[in-house]
């Protein structure tokens, strides 16, 4: 099952997207724990786009979701400032200062995190989770 979400880069879109994505993943038979973890990853990646790629300015972002029985693949794209989250150093845990955990969540939860910013004008992040 494939679905594309076209979004305005603002924090208000996060909750409605999670709701729709939760329904899609659940109806595809994925267990609740994995569904919630993948929602967290998408949320963190989009928050990074809003904060770092667009720096609070308006812009567009897309989320392409490909769900099968044994794999969830998500591709996020934006046209903002280049920001490669895979190059951000891992935080030392437990982190007792606010911030810096989003990328740790993405790396910990997903099986593959691939930055493809060289293929697009802005940023493209490919995320894969296997069953």
């Amino acid at each position, binding site marked *: 099952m494939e679905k594309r979400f076209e979004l305005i880069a603002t924090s208000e879109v*996060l909750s409605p997207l999670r709701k729709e994505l939760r329904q899609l993943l659940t109806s595809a038979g994925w267990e609740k*724990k994995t569904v919630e973890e993948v929602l*967290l990853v998408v*949320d963190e990646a989009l*928050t990074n786009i809003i*904060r770092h790629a667009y720096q609070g300015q308006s812009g567009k972002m897309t989320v392409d979701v490909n769900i099968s029985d044994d794999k969830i693949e998500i591709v996020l794209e934006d046209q903002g400032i280049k920001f490669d989250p895979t190059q951000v150093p891992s935080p030392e845990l*437990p*982190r007792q200062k606010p*911030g810096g955990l989003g990328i740790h969540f993405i790396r910990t*939860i997903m099986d593959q995190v691939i930055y493809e910013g060289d293929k697009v004008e802005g940023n493209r992040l490919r995320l894969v989770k296997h069953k």
Partner: protein
Amino acid sequence: MNINVTSRGDIHVLELSGELDYHSSPELREKLTELTAKQAPKILVNLSGVEYMDSSGIATFVEAFQKTKRYQGRLILAALTATVRGVFEIAKLDSIFEIAPTVAEAAGLLGARA
């Protein structure tokens, strides 16, 4: 996100419900900052109604926790849902925060009188 603030003796209780993310966490930060600015000695956060939390929510609690430590105050998180607890565990922060299974136990840890 709904935030209900009440007092129980010298304990300030924040009851949260809904989703805590980059959009809603500033509202929680504002409420917690009000309490830490006046050096509220005991803060209990009831998370039983929070079905979702991201790193913005964690960062908000980390900031408040650090502030309460500076003035020897206490911040206890209570009644975490499985999803929210999972987020604390991935962040390895479940051992840093004071976390109680129920609101009653959290109140007991803070010395609430029956």
